[in-house]
Every structure is written in structure tokens, then in C-alpha cells.
């Protein structure tokens, strides 16, 4: 059984459909205002079922005069299908939005595909269609019954192909580009495995037909739509529904229609230049397991011997395979640049090297800003990018700020990343040219020039949309092990890099001269767990911040400000007048060099042996208004 998160029929690389798709469609249909392309693509960017796709297609009709096509390319498509096809047109139209197309369909009446293509003055000839999808069913092609005689089998296959050739000939006369669909191999058995060796078995005849169809497509300048592969992806057992065929001549299961339609749409999109050109990769927990800044070269998981290590290797192999066919690779990571580049330079198991990456951005900026920068540097649109990141909050941020970027959903298991990226079809191609093979190198050369970075979008709105809940609490027995783990593991956002054992943590917990703080953060994507630890020591009217660390995963969420407010409240309550902080440099904590300055502390000189000292007069601190709910026994009155 497929789990719901990986079943291809559910289009798992897309966000799950919202509950009120019909309501959203209704709101757009009922309003008198213009319908922005982005409203349509936003809706279609979800994993819609057949009913929902049908509903979106209705909107395309009702709201037609109000649609601002924008970047959507109009396409008139004829459907020349065997069996009942009327339910497939709306599915293709809805899915087309996902791949940059505003499709109108003309559907040949039942059983009339050949006549429409070849009869002078047919409705098809007047339809204005630019492309025609010719999709056959093995039963209609006369390949459903076996032949004992090999000659009869050959005649059956040749006859089926002659029918397609006649349609292609007719379409050529009408100046309509044919899109020829291969035929899903029937699931039913005649003689079991021997079917593969018996030329007259339906399975062998259909397989032979498909090979010759591909050659025909190539010879006649038609596009090939590999429907047989889509059926195989779905599983033939679920693809075919004999009851539906008998009842209504519906050629395959309705549950499989969204997957089929998306594959049609991605092919047509690729033919119209809508495929993505650049893969933008996150690093930590995407290209390798772990955090390079914290875990170091030896600590990250990559390579043979561990399941996660092999999974991340497979992600790299996928990226290289894409590069080989002309997809440009870029890196956008929240990291110190030197640390981020280290595995590319030094890790023996890395498949990707620096020379493979056209644009390499590692800093602590917001990722949407950095991704926009990748597009500017490469001089391509953001709608040519696909962004792969394991972190759902980063994905949401990028979707929100740059809705044109393709951002596949990925499950927690990195083994499934390649399936989600490649399964999405955003990199599908209709040809492979010499230019494609050279492209990665060309873009890398272009990217050498630097382009000024610009912050995009309203960051506060984004933070508000995360529905963050921050819990600020004293150390306790339950948190102790995790507190000690963070104290001993955090390297980057760690002001002093002092390491304490679990026993020492317990001592601090019991000492009433010590202010201890553990911080947890939940957002709408889930529980981030404990993400920050602070230890401060009272010394007269000064409090010295001994330890302040935080997980880089929640960087830029304003958690630091919440922590400071909690510290200030604690210090005031104890009668202190100022906070004193220190930054002790380590090979990995350059990112927090200006931490205290950013929070309003004043520089108070250098420390002996390196580092800086910072002071905040409590009277100067102003309580910030933070985009998060606060709780815990060290929370403060906002």
C-alpha cells in the first residue's frame, strides 16, 4: 500500500487541497473584478481531485472575460480520444494552470476522432486548435484480444498504427501539432509471463504498438505523450477499471485522472517553454544530513553506509543528472559561506562540486530574497526556478513571497526527495539540444557578475502567518537532557560555546542565583522543540549572560527578542540594573559577532584572550511587540 504522502495518484509533491476549494472558486466566479493569473495558479498549485479540477475549469469559462492571463500562455487543444473524454477536458484545463497554460479544449464527439481529423470541413478544422492530443485505448485499437498466429498479430498492430497515421496525416493538413499518446499495457493476462514472448498477446501487441508510435511521432514532428508510463506509475491494477469501461466507456479510473491530466499539462507546458530551468538547492538536511555549521565535515551524514547518507547522495545524483541535460544548479542556504562550501571542497563522498553550482548563496538572509537574487544573477525569471528545501517553513515563505517559483512538497524521509522533484514534472523536456548540453556552463559564466541584493516582501506579514507560539520556561527535569545536548552541540548561534554536562545543568537549575531559560517554539508546520537555552548569573546589580544559544532553524523569527525580554524581566525582578553579554569567538560562531549590538546593547570593550563585551542598561530596554503567542513561567507581560 502507498502511504497517503507518497501515492502518485494524490500528486504528493503539491500542497494538499484546501477544504474550501469550491468556496474559493465561487468567490472568484461571483466577483465582478478581474481574476489575476496568480489567483488561478495558486488554486491549481494544490493537489486537486477531479471534482475540484472540474470546478476550476468551470471558473475558466464563467470568468473568461475577467481573466488577466499575465504570464499564462493561451493554448487551444483538441482532444481526439477513444472512449468517453468529456470528463478529461476540465482536468487538463485545471492542471494546465499549474504549468503556465490557459487551455481551451475542443473535444471530438464519441468515436469521431478519425472522422474529425480527416473529413474536409469537420468541426475540428474550424476549432482553431493548435495541438491535438490523440490518445487511444487498446480495446478501441483492436489490440484487446490475443492472436495465436504471429502474422495476425502483426496485422493487428499495423492496423492500429495505420489508424493513428491517418489521424496524424489529417492533423498535418489542418496545421495542428499532434500529441501522440502511448497506450497503457493491459493488465489482464493471457498466458502469464509468456505473454511477453508471444507476439500475439495483448500486452506484447500494445508494447510493439508503443515502440512504433514513438518512431512515428519522431518522424512526423509530433509530440509524444507517454501515457503508458503514467499508467505504470499509478499501477495497472488501479489504472484500469473494467466496470467503468463497460458502463460508460471511461478508459481509466477516475482517481487516476488528476495524475494523467497533470502529465498532459506538463508536456504541453514544456512544449510552450514553461518548464523550469534552474534547480535551487538548500544544503543542510537536503544535500546532506545534519547541519554543517554545527556538525562539521565529519559529522554530516553523506555517502554509503548510512540510510540517510545514501538518500542525500541520491539527491545529489539527481541534481547532477539534471545538470547533464541542461538544468542550471544553484545553492541557497542559511549558513556561513565558508562552512557551506566546505563539503563541496573537502568531503570525499560529495558528488556535487563547487564547479557544478552556477550561483552559490550562503548567508543569513531570508531565502525568498536570496532566491530572487539567483534569478536576477542568471537573468532568468523566478518562474524558471524550482526550489528544494526540507524545511516546510522555508518552503512556505518562498511560496508566499515568490508564488511563481515551483516549490515541491517533500516528506520527512530524504529518500523520497528525488521522487517528489522529478515526479512533479516541472523539469520535463520535449527535446534535448546541443544548447541544452552547454547551458549549465554558459549560465555559470553569466553568474560571475554580481547583482545587488534586495530584500523582498513584507517580512512581518510572513512572521505573523506562521502562528508561532513561544514557551519560555525555567530549566526542569524533563528538559534537562535536551538542554545539555543543545549546550554541547550548538556551534553557530552560540555566544560563548561553553559546554556543560547534564549534572552541571542540574546544579544550575537548583541555584537561585542563576537565571536559567529553556525556549520552545511551535508554528503552523509543527513543533520545533527546544530551540534556545540561556544561562545568566547574578552578580550584584549586574547580570552576566554566561550562555546564550539558539537553533539556526528558527533564525529570523524574533525569538532572540523574546528571550531578551524574558531576561530583562527576570533581572528587573531581582533588582538588577544592567545586563552584561559576551561574545567569545570560535571557528563557527561568526554569525553572532554582532548579536548584542542588534539587540541594543552598547559595546563595552574587548575581552582578554579575544571577544567582546556588551552592556544593556535595563532602563533602556523597550518591550517589543512580537509576532508570537507567549507562555511559560519565564514569559513576560507583552
Amino acid at each position, binding site marked *: 500500500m502507498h502511504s497517503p504522502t507518497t501515492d502518485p495518484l494524490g500528486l504528493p509533491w503539491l500542497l494538499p487541497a484546501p477544504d474550501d476549494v469550491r468556496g474559493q472558486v465561487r468567490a472568484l466566479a461571483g466577483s465582478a473584478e478581474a481574476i489575476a493569473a496568480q489567483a488561478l495558479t495558486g488554486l491549481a498549485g494544490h493537489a486537486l481531485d477531479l471534482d475540484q479540477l*472540474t470546478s476550476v475549469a468551470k471558473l475558466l469559462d464563467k470568468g473568461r472575460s475577467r481573466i488577466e492571463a499575465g504570464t499564462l500562455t493561451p493554448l487551444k487543444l483538441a482532444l481526439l480520444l477513444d472512449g468517453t473524454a*468529456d470528463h478529461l477536458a476540465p482536468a487538463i484545463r485545471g492542471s494546465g494552470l499549474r504549468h503556465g497554460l490557459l487551455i481551451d479544449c475542443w473535444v471530438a464527439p464519441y468515436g469521431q476522432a478519425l472522422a474529425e481529423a480527416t473529413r474536409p470541413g469537420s468541426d475540428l478544422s474550424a476549432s482553431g486548435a493548435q495541438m491535438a492530443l490523440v490518445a487511444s485505448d487498446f480495446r478501441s485499437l483492436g489490440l484487446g484480444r490475443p492472436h495465436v498466429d504471429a502474422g495476425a498479430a502483426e496485422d493487428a498492430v499495423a492496423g492500429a498504427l495505420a489508424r493513428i497515421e491517418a489521424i496524424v496525416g489529417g492533423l498535418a493538413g489542418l496545421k495542428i501539432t499532434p500529441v501522440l499518446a502511448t497506450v497503457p499495457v493491459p493488465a489482464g493476462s493471457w498466458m502469464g509471463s509468456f505473454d511477453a514472448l508471444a507476439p500475439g498477446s495483448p500486452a506484447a501487441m500494445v508494447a510493439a504498438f508503443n515502440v512504433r508510435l514513438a518512431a512515428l511521432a519522431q518522424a512526423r514532428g509530433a509530440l509524444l505523450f507517454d501515457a503508458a508510463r503514467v499508467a505504470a506509475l499509478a499501477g495497472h491494477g488501479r489504472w484500469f477499471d473494467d466496470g467503468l469501461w463497460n*458502463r460508460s466507456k*471511461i478508459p481509466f479510473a*477516475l482517481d487516476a485522472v488528476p495524475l494523467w491530466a497533470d502529465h498532459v499539462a506538463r508536456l504541453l507546458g514544456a512544449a510552450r517553454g514553461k518548464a523550469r530551468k534552474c534547480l535551487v538547492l538548500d544544503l543542510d538536511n537536503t544535500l546532506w544530513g545534519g547541519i554543517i555549521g554545527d556538525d562539521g565535515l565529519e559529522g554530516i551524514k553523506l555517502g554509503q553506509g548510512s540510510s540517510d547518507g545514501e538518500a542525500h547522495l541520491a539527491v545529489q545524483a539527481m541534481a547532477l543528472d539534471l545538470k547533464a541535460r541542461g538544468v542550471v544548479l544553484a545553492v541557497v542556504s542559511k549558513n556561513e559561506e565558508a562552512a557551506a562550501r566546505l563539503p563541496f571542497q573537502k568531503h570525499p563522498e560529495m558528488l556535487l562540486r563547487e564547479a557544478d553550482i552556477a550561483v552559490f548563496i550562503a548567508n543569513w538572509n531570508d531565502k525568498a530574497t536570496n532566491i530572487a537574487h539567483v534569478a536576477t544573477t542568471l537573468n532568468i525569471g523566478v518562474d524558471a526556478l524550482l526550489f528544494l528545501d526540507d524545511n516546510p517553513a522555508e518552503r512556505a515563505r518562498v511560496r508566499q513571497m515568490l508564488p511563481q517559483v515551483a516549490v515541491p512538497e517533500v516528506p520527512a524521509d530524504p529518500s523520497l526527495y528525488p521522487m517528489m522533484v522529478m515526479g512533479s514534472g516541472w523539469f520535463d523536456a520535449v527535446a534535448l539540444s546541443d544548447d541544452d548540453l552547454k547551458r549549465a556552463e554558459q549560465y555559470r559564466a553569466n553568474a560571475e557578475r554580481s547583482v545587488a541584493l534586495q530584500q523582498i516582501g513584507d517580512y512581518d506579514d510572513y512572521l505573523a502567518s506562521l502562528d508561532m507560539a513561544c514557551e519560555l520556561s525555567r530549566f526542569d527535569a524533563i528538559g534537562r537532557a535536551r538542554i545539555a545536548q543543545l549546550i554541547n552541540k550548538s556551534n553557530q548561534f552560540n555566544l560563548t560555546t561553553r559546554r556543560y554536562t547534564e549534572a552541571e545543568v542540574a546544579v544550575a537549575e537548583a541555584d537561585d542565583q542563576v537565571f536559567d531559560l529553556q525556549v520552545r517554539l511551535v508554528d503552523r508546520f509543527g513543533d520545533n522543540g527546544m530551540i534556545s537555552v540561556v544561562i545568566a548569573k547574578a552578580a550584584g546589580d549586574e547580570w552576566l549572560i554566561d550562555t546564550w544559544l539558539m537553533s539556526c532553524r528558527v533564525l529570523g523569527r524574533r525569538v532572540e527578542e523574546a528571550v531578551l525580554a524574558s531576561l530583562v524581566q527576570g533581572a528587573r525582578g531581582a533588582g538588577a540594573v544592567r545586563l552584561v553579554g559576551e561574545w567569545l569567538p570560535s571557528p563557527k560562531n561568526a554569525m553572532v559577532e554582532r548579536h548584542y549590538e542588534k539587540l541594543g546593547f552598547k559595546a563595552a570593550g574587548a575581552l582578554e584572550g579575544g571577544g567582546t563585551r556588551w552592556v544593556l542598561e535595563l532602563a533602556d530596554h523597550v518591550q517589543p511587540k512580537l509576532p508570537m503567542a507567549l507562555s511559560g513561567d519565564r514569559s513576560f507581560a507583552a
Partner: protein
Amino acid sequence: MDETQVLAKFRDVFADVMDIDDPEIGMESTAKDFEEWDSLSNIRLVVAVERAFGTRFSNADIEGFSCVGDLVRALVARAG
């Protein structure tokens, strides 16, 4: 589930498939009562009902349904 419960659940499925908010549908309703309910949407309706109720109808079953009540009673009988 009794007839009332099955009918209520059927109404939700019907609303989604036909794209109608709060359809006025009862045991006596037939395809003639709704413009949206044509032969094509009927196919989607049957498949959606089969999925929602975790059952499968034969072609003979389907041909025997002349109104919503026939379908609802068949679903109640199957639910046991």
C-alpha cells in the same frame, strides 16, 4: 447508519461533485431536478459515492436506481 444519516452524507458528496452549495436534495430527487446532473457528472457521482461509502456497485445496481432514495436505501442495506 440510517436513511437520514446516509442521505446527509450523500448530500455532501453530491454538492462536491455537482459543484452546488447546499443542494436541495431528498429521497425523491432525480437527475431531472438538477441542470448539473447529466450523464457525465453522474459517472463521477457514482464513483464518488462508492469511495465515500467504501462500497462498489455493479452495473445492474446502478441501472436499478431511479431516484436518490433507491441509492440511499441500497447504501443503508449494505452498511447493515
